[in-house]
């Protein structure tokens, strides 16, 4: 007895063993067709009795096992069915001969046998042989079932006879000793007549009868016999047989308690038939009682048979707990003999099956543990595999899935043990796959993506390595790649650096033969291996969709201003909105991509490997819009920090695009990583709108490009910078070439400008252009160019403030509003006055200070389908102008002209350039200034009536405060003065010219001087208006009329005033003679009184003078200061001086 049958279960004890064998060569397929047909007849109701006969079929059975048939009768081959193929009658005799030989092998135990011949045409030659049947073909064998049943019936007859024979044997004659093969030599020399020997024979026979009863379907009888056998054998310490008796007892009890069976396989089938015969069982009970020798029940309950059977059954049958106890005892009995190892092992297996049904896993595991320790003789590799597989199955049965997996794995390893000539890698792989659940390992990487990996990493890794190796040896590299990818992806945290290197290397070598794909692999066993995307190689920490560069960024025409805000909340600002959760979930980004333009997505990646990671063909996975991605290849240094990677692509259609993930190829494995499956990913939106295509504008200018970028405070981002150097006051023409480098026609263009750096005081328009000419060339086809001309005019402050103030303060002439100088000293033509520039040396640094101006030209353009949707693009050109000073007005002052309506403006002009410079005012001749020279320049100007200008401007705009009104007023005044003056400079050597603006130079004081007084005084002598240089002639002795007219142009009523006329003579040497009482006399009063003059009204005073002598006289009309709280400025009362020349009438008559 060497080969254990691991499939045995307790109820096998009640079966009859029939071996089905083939004679000659029969196709496996055909043989098993018949075998299955035969084995379907596994329960028979023999002889129409109520008993049930169970048959166990085997297609091979070791003869040495058969030798244990006396020990346990279910091991005995009682029937033989041979299947042969025979074409002709000629072949029949040899077949029958072979059949006889086969019978010979089991002859000692065989009850009966049959031969089924297939393919035999015609009549059987020898009709006398009932044990031979023939069938024309394998398919046409409906009668086989019947034949087999008949055969079973015949077996039953033999069995029943044997049983009855054995039962009656105990009447007194000598009982033969039953023994198992190995015991044979032990009995040599034993006294067969001893009481001990007899008892042993009795006990063994009793046990044998029990077996037969059990097989014959008489459970109760069997139980009784077994009980008796146990008693007998225990007394003689026949341990192995005692074990067998105990096991028989257990088996019978199990059959009684668990009619469903413990084997599991044929359970359902069996149960059905058992329930069917349940009542018939009962009815037959009296029949069974006939042969029942129940020492307990017979005496007490002879009459009530039914009750006695119930009691007997309850008494004889073991309780479930007892079954296990008895099994334990049986096994320990078997354990006492080494030769009974197989029996012990099988008993353990049977016990485990029973315990599994009882759900007593702990005890079952103890039995199994025992199985592990039962040392049989050297097992072949195949047997080892079988043994481990069965152990695994049994552990599975009792719910010990880890143990089960452990043994399965051992079995798998056994399949490919080095001692095996042809390793069964396929079987190994299959077994390994079955161990996965036990190690809580699923091959779906999704199960590992949630949080940190929790499991038996060391054990799982080992298993994965084995899977990889097995699949490789199986010749399935795709599978190996998949498993290895899985190992790398899920166990990355547990791999040591060296292991990481090794795994990566082997993965690369595998993928060189078979690249890893994203397709699920279906195994023949039906298991589907999902793809393994390498989300950890590299690890992506954040995904950010990038906006287009500023110059390409589309902007929406804002016709629905503020609509966005109003829909969200009634509040202008609320902190709750700022952290709105739903907003985040929306994941929509508030910028747009443009169809046809290159769009970028930035990933922050991280290489967890201890070596350089090469990622090939990295691209984006998108949905919603046709997107053409440009694959990127990157190489990440070992254990790099966060590393930015920009993936680019071009949307080909419009709509909403969603970035779902990315695509990589690492170590030859292609993976599609979806962002949703990435743990710990920072992601602020993956959906963006793609708007229709827009044209692209490129600008180039005639000016050199500038490296100087605008200060960041400017806010707008500027794509191109150009710079130019200009002298203050110069105007530069710039030609801007606009080229459409996109694919859409450029239809619309708007140009705006903005001055950025406004620290400097600035006058006039900085940038001006003519757009009409350019627009005439529109729409601009792709590739075409248009031209825009822009004028840059720089007009900074020409003054230097600090000097000016200083100089003015010590200049008595200009400050004084009073007329003190002689009119003859004022020249009407520009007067050149050389001035030493001793102080300008020290301040030359100030003068040479280069100022810079910055401006932005904005081009808003649109066209193509994007224009229809209301989008435009913005392109900015930054202008940087370095302004070098040209001329400065270091000092400005006024001199009253002879006329009160006129005035002289004096400028001290300083040439701060290094070149000779000419300067001229309107209609005046050029003034040449050498480098660093300062000269005075005088210009006679009419006084201005500023009221009208300031009035109109203040009416137009309502300024919020007085100061601004004042500023505006001053500005407009300056503008007017400047335009009237028209001062221009020219550098002949450089051929550059420009204007010099006086706007910033004029201060309040000068302006006041330049302003016409609101009170206009007209003095006429003899009806002739007498102003500045006009000399009124009069005759001595004749009274001359003097008329003083006051016109009030101011807004308020003025007066009353008193005026006194004082004549005097100027000796031209600084001496004024006021003592003229004898020379000039007044007709009437020399003092006038002017009453209140209403605005826009005038008042006239008349008087007369009488000159008594000839001479040049001046009349000083003095304002009599009689009003102490006078608030009107003095300059309002500058009356013209009157020059009268009195001529002798005689001399005239003389001529």
């Amino acid at each position: 007895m060497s080969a254990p049958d691991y499939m045995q279960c307790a109820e096998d004890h009640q079966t009859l063993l029939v071996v089905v064998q083939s004679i000659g060569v029969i196709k496996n397929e055909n043989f098993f067709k018949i075998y299955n047909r035969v084995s379907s007849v596994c329960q028979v109701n023999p002889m129409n009795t109520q008993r049930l006969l169970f048959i166990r079929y085997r297609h091979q059975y070791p003869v040495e096992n058969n030798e244990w048939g006396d020990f346990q009768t279910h091991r005995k081959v009682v029937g033989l069915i041979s299947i042969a193929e025979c074409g002709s009658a000629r072949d029949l005799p040899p077949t029958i001969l072979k059949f006889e030989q086969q019978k010979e092998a089991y002859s000692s135990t065989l009850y009966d046998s049959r031969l089924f011949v297939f393919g035999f045409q015609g009549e059987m030659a020898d009709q006398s042989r009932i044990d031979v049947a023939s069938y024309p073909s394998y398919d046409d064998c409906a009668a086989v079932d019947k034949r087999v049943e008949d055969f079973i019936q015949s077996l039953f007859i033999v069995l029943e006879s044997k049983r009855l024979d054995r039962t009656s044997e105990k009447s007194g004659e000598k009982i033969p000793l039953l023994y198992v093969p190995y015991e044979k030599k032990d009995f040599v020399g034993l006294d067969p007549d001893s009481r001990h020997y007899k008892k042993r024979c009795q006990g063994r026979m009793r046990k044998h009868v029990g077996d037969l009863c059990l097989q014959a379907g008489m459970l109760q009888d069997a139980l009784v016999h077994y009980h008796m056998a146990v008693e007998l054998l225990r007394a003689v310490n026949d341990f192995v047989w005692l074990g067998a008796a105990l096991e028989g007892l257990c088996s019978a009890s199990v059959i009684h308690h668990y009619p469903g069976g413990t084997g599991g396989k044929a359970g359902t089938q069996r149960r059905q038939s058992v329930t069917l015969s349940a009542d018939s069982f009962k009815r037959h009970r009296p029949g069974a009682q006939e042969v029942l020798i129940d020492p307990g029940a017979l005496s007490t309950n002879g009459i009530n048979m039914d009750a006695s059977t119930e009691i007997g059954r309850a008494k004889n049958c073991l309780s479930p707990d007892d079954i296990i106890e008895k099994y334990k005892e049986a096994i320990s009995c078997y354990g006492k003999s080494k030769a009974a190892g197989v029996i012990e092992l099988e008993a353990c297996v049977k016990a485990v099956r029973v315990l599994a049904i009882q759900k007593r896993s702990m005890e079952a595991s103890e039995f199994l543990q025992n199985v592990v320790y039962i040392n049989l003789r050297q097992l072949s590799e195949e047997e080892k595999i079988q043994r481990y597989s069965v152990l695994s199955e049994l552990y599975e049965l009792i719910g010990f899935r880890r143990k089960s997996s452990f043994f399965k794995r051992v079995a798998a390893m056994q399949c490919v043990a080095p001692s095996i000539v042809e390793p069964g890698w396929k079987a190994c792989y299959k077994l390994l796959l079955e161990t996965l659940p036990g190690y809580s390992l699923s091959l779906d990487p999704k199960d590992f993506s949630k949080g940190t990996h929790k499991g038996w990493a060391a054990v799982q890794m080992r298993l994965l390595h084995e899977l990889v190796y097995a699949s490789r040896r199986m010749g399935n590299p795709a599978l190996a790649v998949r498993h290895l990818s899985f190992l790398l992806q899920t166990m990355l945290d547990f791999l040591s650096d060296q292991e990481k290197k090794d795994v990566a290397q082997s993965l690369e070598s595998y993928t060189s033969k078979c690249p890893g794909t994203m397709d699920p692999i279906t195994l023949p066993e039906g298991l589907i291996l999902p793809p393994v995307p390498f989300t950890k190689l590299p690890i992506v920490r954040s995904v950010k969709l990038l906006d287009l560069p500023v110059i390409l960024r589309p902007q929406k025409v804002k016709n629905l201003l503020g609509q966005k805000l109003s829909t969200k909340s009634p509040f202008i600002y609320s902190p709750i909105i700022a952290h709105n959760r739903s907003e985040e979930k929306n994941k929509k980004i508030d910028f747009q991509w443009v169809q046809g333009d290159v769009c970028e997505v930035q990933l922050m990646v991280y290489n967890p490997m201890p070596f350089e990671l090469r990622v090939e063909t990295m691209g984006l996975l998108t949905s919603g819009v046709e997107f053409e991605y440009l694959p990127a290849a990157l190489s990440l240094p070992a254990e790099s920090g966060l590393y930015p990677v920009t993936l680019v692509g071009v949307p080909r259609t419009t709509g909403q695009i969603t970035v779902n993930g990315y695509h990589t190829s690492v170590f030859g494995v292609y993976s599609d990583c979806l962002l949703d499956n990435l743990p710990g990913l920072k992601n602020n939106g993956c959906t963006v709108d793609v708007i229709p295509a827009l044209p692209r504008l490129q600008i180039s200018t005639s000016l050199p490009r500038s490296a100087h970028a605008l200060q960041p405070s400017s806010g707008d981002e500027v794509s191109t910078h150009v710079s130019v150097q200009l002298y203050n006051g110069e105007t530069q023409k710039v030609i801007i070439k606009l080229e459409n480098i996109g694919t859409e026609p450029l239809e619309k263009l708007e140009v705006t400008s903005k001055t950025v750096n406004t620290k400097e005081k600035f006058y006039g328009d900085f940038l001006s252009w003519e757009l009409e000419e350019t627009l005439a060339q529109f729409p601009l086809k792709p590739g075409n160019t248009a031209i825009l001309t822009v004028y840059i005019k720089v007009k900074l402050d020409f003054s230097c403030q600090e000097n000016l103030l200083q100089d003015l303060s010590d200049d008595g002439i200009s400050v004084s509003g009073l007329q003190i100088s002689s009119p003859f000293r004022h020249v009407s033509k520009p007067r050149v006055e050389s001035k030493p520039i001793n102080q300008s040396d020290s301040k030359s640094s100030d003068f040479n200070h280069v100022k810079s101006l910055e401006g932005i030209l904005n081009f808003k353009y649109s066209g193509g389908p994007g224009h229809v949707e209301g989008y435009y693009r913005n392109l900015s050109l930054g202008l940087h102008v370095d302004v070098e000073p040209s001329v400065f007005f270091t000092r400005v002052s006024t001199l009253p002209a002879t006329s009160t309506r006129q005035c002289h403006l004096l400028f001290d002009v300083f040439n701060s350039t290094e070149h000779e410079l000419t300067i001229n005012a309107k209609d005046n001749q050029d003034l040449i200034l050498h480098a660093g020279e300062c000269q005075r320049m005088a210009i006679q100007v009419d006084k201005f009536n500023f009221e009208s200008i300031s009035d109109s401007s203040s009416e137009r705009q309502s300024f919020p405060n007085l100061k601004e009104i004042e500023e505006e007023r001053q500005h407009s005044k300056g503008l007017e003065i400047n335009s009237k003056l028209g001062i221009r400079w020219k550098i002949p050597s450089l051929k550059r010219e420009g204007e010099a603006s006086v706007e910033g130079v004029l201060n309040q004081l000068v302006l006041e001087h330049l302003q016409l007084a609101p009170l206009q005084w007209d003095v006429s002598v003899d009806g002739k208006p007498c102003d500045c240089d006009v000399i009124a002639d009069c005759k001595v002795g004749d009274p001359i009329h003097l008329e003083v007219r006051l016109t009030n142009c101011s807004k308020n009523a003025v007066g009353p005033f008193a005026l006194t006329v004082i004549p005097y003579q100027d000796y031209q040497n600084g001496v004024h003679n006021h003592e003229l009482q004898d020379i000039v006399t007044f007709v009437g009063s020399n003092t006038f009184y002017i009453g209140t003059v209403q605005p826009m009204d005038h008042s006239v005073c008349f008087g007369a003078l009488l000159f008594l002598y000839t001479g040049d006289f001046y009349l000083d009309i003095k304002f009599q200061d009689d009003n102490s709280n006078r608030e009107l400025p003095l300059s309002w009362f500058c009356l013209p001086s009157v020059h009268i020349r009195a001529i002798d009438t005689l001399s005239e008559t003389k001529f």
Partner: protein
Amino acid sequence: MAVCVAVIAKENYPLYIRSTPTENQLKFHYTVHTSLDVVDEKISAMGKAVMDQRELYLGLLYPTEDYKVYGYVTNSKVKFVMVVDSSNTSLRDNEIRSMFRKLHNSYTDVMCNPFYNPGDPIQSRAFDNTVTSMMVPAC
């Protein structure tokens, strides 16, 4: 003394496992892993018993040829498994029991660390020292 000490989380994954460095580590991983079957079985059997006054010590889980595996389960279903050399016959049940109690105390200390996240692998030096003291042969 112990040749391998393991702490296993409620969800049956290892929080801590340490074995004598001279031996094959993987072997102990397998041993402890398979012992969990028995632990599970014992716990489920215990569930039927009285819930309070539960015995935390599970006793011998199973013996192998070379080792004996003992188990202990806390009220929060954290398991301690100790593998002991079976040649060491001097070790009594009571000693094993006290070793487990010591281990439990040390584990409690680990849990008290506010910087320790329950469910993370244990990386405490104090706990390490406790385990080391159990693994060196008691003199």
